[in-house]
């Protein structure tokens, strides 16, 4: 274990003994040292053996949970939640805990490299001046409309900088995309909120205050929108009120981790969620004896029961529950919206809420608080906008593409053809921290710091009552020769000169941050106030962000949806196979957790499988097809085919199969590469009403391949399922 420590490591490990660890910022001639503020007022010297805690923000997903990282002698040891941050109130999820296995991952991009040829893993190292020059030339030498930025959903301060940069340059605005937003169908939620709640924005479902939650496909305890916040609220719903225990029903074809926590699981035919919601609305109206609103009038309960596979008396039983509940709440989510009729489903479910009049009430539907520094909620691009972006790339009009914080080759379905579009772009510059697929296909990789080594802020879109800006500061000095992308862009802007230089005349990232944070000095009822920016910046770093003390949830004005007649057209499924396909985001890996060894080792909650992908098939169907556990089957859809090991999963409809998303990388480090399969290969380009991908709208065929691949389960098949098999 004790490796001979190189001199450079020794310096790092010894931890610079300055009062508070000083950090070199910027990389141009004007670089200067900026002191960091430890989390609580620690003794001013860094004892050996005493750990120092720094507050920062988790960048494993876009929820923006606050973290407090314990460091000792310049090494980050343990990540904990930031108790004061209203998003997670001191708690973290599995991905947040494993973020250190990302920072200290053995396969990180260590230096700026220039790929001799795209796709080849060898690239010759460059120094940062040359790298900045490349970026400067790309910005100055190309015409503004020939420059394109493709960003991930975090961090927001980089997105704001790129927005300012493109505005001052006159280039098209940066496009934001994330696989999580694709599987959560955020555009559909936003559009439905506009149609039903009267305002564009991300709805916030107050699960904590509700005593009857009907969730139509929303996996809000896994990776949906802000998982830690929703898990906290779920716990409040169950045990928050001593004399009332919330009741929770989940409507989905495949029982997800959220489904296992439900009191009742309704195995519904995919695509019929909207119809079922309307049927329940009608039955609730009949149960309450009020007049039947127009929106529910056109629905025939028997026909809905026939299509959806949910018997009439179950529907009446559910309607009874919904009617008698004090604060009933219906949530449209994930799989339900990933159908061709996804938008109508969302509107039908929101109509159900409108009927019980729980808009803007505890246990009802709100619009998420507007984040600080944000004029209005900017949602990430939906698949329609991504298709347009891909077409512009294909048209060859884009000469240089900058990519940061997103891995579209892996995250986007292959049928959209992003890879070929990338080939058409003469120069691709990636700022990836890890050697993922898109970084491998780019000409240059100028690696950004890891999330815990960088500055910044994240505007919290949803999950917290008050308006929250989660702040980030480096908890350790950067481990490799990486530079913050904001610094690189600022330096490039100076080199490029002209309007760009004058618009972005910030010495370094911290000064840029301070220019943004200036606006918050004068905000009313803020968590801490400071007379001027330097004191504010110190508190901002020490508390790990800035947030208001009072809730800012917006009570929706509501459009008279009950008067409208809402027709749910049956969901279209393309593909000749006879099984519905449910791709779901792995609750453990999320969209980018595959390269962290300990995340691969953490078992999937439902199947306890680790380190690989699997396909869940109902045991009855499997027996019919003569398939057994660990048999490898070929799954074919219109768009492609994959091979995966079978897991006979008892809680899934016989006509449905499910595959987790998160594995199947071809690059991205030793723990992720060539492990498992990517269900996105099966998805076609069909969209739903709001421009989101109808990812659950595929029908696939299953064929035996005769091969066998043992799944690494933590459970024992014999102990849990009774068959004497290992």
């Amino acid at each position, binding site marked *: 274990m004790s490796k001979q420590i190189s001199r450079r490591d020794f310096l790092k490990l010894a931890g610079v003994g300055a009062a508070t660890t000083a950090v070199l910022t910027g990389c141009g001639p004007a670089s200067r040292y900026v002191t960091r503020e430890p989390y609580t007022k620690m003794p001013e010297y860094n004892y050996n053996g005493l750990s120092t805690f720094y507050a920062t923000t988790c960048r494993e997903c876009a929820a923006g949970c606050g973290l407090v990282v314990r460091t000792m002698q310049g090494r980050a040891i343990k990540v904990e939640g930031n108790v004061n941050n209203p998003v997670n109130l001191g708690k973290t999820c599995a991905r947040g805990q494993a973020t250190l296995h990302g920072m200290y991952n053995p396969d990180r991009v260590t230096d700026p490299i220039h790929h001799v040829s795209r796709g080849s893993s060898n690239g010759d190292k460059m120094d940062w001046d040359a790298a900045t020059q490349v970026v400067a030339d790309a910005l100055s030498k190309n015409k503004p409309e020939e420059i394109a930025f493709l960003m991930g959903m975090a961090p927001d301060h980089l997105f704001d900088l790129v927005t300012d940069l493109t505005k001052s340059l006159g280039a098209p605005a940066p496009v934001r995309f994330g696989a999580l937003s694709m599987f959560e169908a955020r555009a559909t939620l936003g559009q439905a909120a506009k149609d039903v709640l009267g305002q564009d924005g991300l709805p916030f479902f107050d699960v904590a205050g509700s005593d009857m939650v009907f969730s139509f496909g929303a996996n809000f305890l896994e990776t949906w929108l802000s998982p830690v916040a929703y898990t906290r609220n779920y716990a409040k719903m169950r045990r928050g009120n001593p004399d009332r225990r919330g009741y929770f029903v989940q409507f989905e074809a495949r029982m997800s981790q959220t489904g296992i926590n439900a009191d009742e699981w309704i195995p519904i035919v995919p695509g019929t969620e909207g119809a079922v919601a309307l049927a329940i609305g009608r039955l609730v109206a009949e149960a309450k004896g009020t007049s039947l609103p127009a929106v529910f009038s056109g629905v025939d309960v028997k026909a809905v029961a026939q299509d959806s596979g949910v018997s009439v008396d179950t529907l009446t039983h559910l309607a009874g529950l919904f009617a008698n509940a004090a604060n009933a709440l219906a949530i449209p989510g994930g799989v339900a919206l990933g159908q061709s009729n996804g938008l109508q489903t969302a509107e039908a479910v929101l109509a159900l809420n409108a009927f019980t009049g729980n808009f803007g009430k505890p246990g009802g539907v709100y619009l998420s608080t507007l984040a600080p520094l944000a004029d209005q909620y900017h949602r990430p691009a939906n698949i329609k906008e991504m298709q347009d972006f891909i077409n512009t790339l294909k048209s060859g009009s884009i000469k240089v593409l900058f990519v940061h914080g997103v891995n579209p080759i892996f995250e986007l379905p292959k049928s959209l053809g992003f890879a070929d579009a990338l080939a058409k772009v003469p120069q691709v510059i990636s700022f990836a921290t890890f050697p993922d697929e898109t970084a491998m296909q780019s000409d240059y990789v100028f690696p950004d710091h890891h999330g815990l080594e960088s500055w910044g802020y994240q505007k919290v879109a949803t999950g917290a009552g008050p308006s929250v800006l989660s702040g980030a500061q480096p908890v350790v000095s950067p481990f490799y020769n990486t530079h913050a992308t904001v610094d690189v862009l600022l330096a490039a802007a100076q080199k490029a000169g002209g309007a760009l230089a004058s618009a972005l005349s910030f010495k370094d990232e911290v000064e840029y941050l301070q220019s943004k944070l200036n606006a918050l000095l004068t905000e009313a009822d803020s968590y801490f106030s400071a007379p001027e920016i330097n004191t504010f910046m110190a508190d901002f770093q020490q508390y790990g962000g800035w947030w208001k003390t009072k809730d800012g949830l917006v009570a929706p004005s509501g459009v008279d949806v009950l008067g409208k007649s809402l027709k749910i057209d049956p969901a279209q499924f393309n593909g000749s196979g006879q099984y519905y396909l449910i791709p779901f985001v792995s609750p453990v890996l999320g969209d980018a957790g595959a390269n962290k060894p300990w995340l691969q080792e953490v078992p999937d909650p439902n199947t306890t499988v680790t380190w690989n992908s699997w396909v869940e098939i109902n045991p009855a169907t499997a027996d019919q097809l003569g398939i057994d556990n660990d048999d490898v089957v070929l799954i074919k859809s219109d768009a492609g085919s994959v091979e995966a090991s079978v897991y006979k999963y008892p809680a899934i409809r016989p006509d449905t199969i499910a595959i987790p998303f998160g594995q199947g990388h071809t690059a991205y480090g030793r723990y992720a590469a060539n492990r498992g399969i990517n269900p996105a290969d099966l998805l076609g380009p069909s969209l739903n009403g709001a421009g989101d991908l109808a990812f659950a709208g595929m029908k696939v065929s299953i064929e035996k391949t005769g091969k066998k691949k043992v799944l690494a389960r933590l*459970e*024992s098949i*014999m*102990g*849990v399922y009774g068959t*004497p*098999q*290992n």
Partner: protein
Amino acid sequence: MAATAKPIQSIHAQEAEDDLRENLLFDPRPRSEINSMVMESMQTAGWKFWAVTTFVALFVLVALFGVWIYLILNGMGVTGTDRPIYWGVFLSNTVFWIGISHTGAFVAALLRVIKTNFHHAITRVAEFMAVFGIIQTGLSVFFHLGRVWRSYWLIPFPNERGLWPDFHSPLSWDFMAITTYMIVSGLYLILPLIPDLAMLRDHSTGWRKNLYRILALGFRGTEDEWKHLRAAIKIFSFAMIPIMVSVTTVVSWDFAMATRPGWSSTVFGPFFVVGAFHSGVAALVALLALIRITMKNMKYFIRPETFDSLGKLMLIISMAWAYLYFNDYIVPWYGGTSLDRLLLKFHETGPFAPMFYLMLTFNAVIPWALLWNKKIRRSPWVMFIIGLLIVIGMWFERFLIVPGSLTISANPFTWRIYQISWVEVSLTLGTVAFFALLYLLASRFLPFISPWEVQEGQESHTIRKVGKAGLPSASDID
């Protein structure tokens, strides 16, 4: 000894007498002839013997010590053990070898104590089996330890940090019991050997003479020496019987003390003792048959008569074993917890089912079907086969008890099924080869037959004429 044609009326008497002559003790030879026969069996070794010995020695070097070092360097991960099967083949080997080893000493001691008329030729082979078997037991225990380079902490020696082993643990009792048995069986081999070494000292030349002169410790055979020696052998013989029972019981308590379904049963003590005896006698019979076939002059010492008597013993013991196995089976079957019953069903229908049924046939069905017949009992070849089958059957039984029963633990989430790994197969065969190697080497240096005991037996057994028939009479001459 084909019976020659005789007049009818006295045929019975003569036939009876010829049968009697079958027994070694009633077919005496002069001591010098016995000595030379034993010496000859020790010294003559063709190239075939040395070829086999070197092959076995090489196999032991590679398959035992080489693979053991590989195991130590790579950790227990290379074996088939996992959660919840923390004890694998090495533990069942330990129980298997301690069974064979114990019966060696037990047979030698018991038959001496009850003064049978067939043990005189076979006590030395049995004592060798005891010593060589306990060496394999020790090895198997060390294979099984996760950090074998720290296992000296099991020894209760005073050290500067005042750390002592925990004697609440059955493993500490085990350590005590196996060490005791190792020392005691060694001494029990040496004591009767001293007179034979004196004989060898007198009859050999060159480097052998010097070797035996040193080993014989100056023994002459004066009355004092014989008196002390025979007193000691009497004490040893009486003490070995309870030791054998206690050490096997302590080994069985490693399993009986654990709160695992299938293990925590009160019948494990006697069950393991009888199991040890069953496999031991079978192994002894197989060894004797092998020695009789391969070594010179052994046909005179190891006779069909010996196999006949041992065969009867095997029949009785296999019934006892079957009884105790049934006892250990019916109690959980009838009143056990659901896990116990599931374990029984797992044995009968799970992946180890063939091994389960083979065990029953080898250990009980075959012995009962064959060993009642005198002709079968007297033929060394058939007895060799039956012995070998019982030894294999008992190994299966130990395999089913240790890794076979660990599949079902109190927590169903962690049940796994044991898969043996090449490392364990290699080390198991390694111990068998090492056992054989020790025998091969011993046959060159130490007599397999104890001439003084044979002569002593022959002197104290004569044929007395009663009426027309010659009847065996035994006098308590020694």
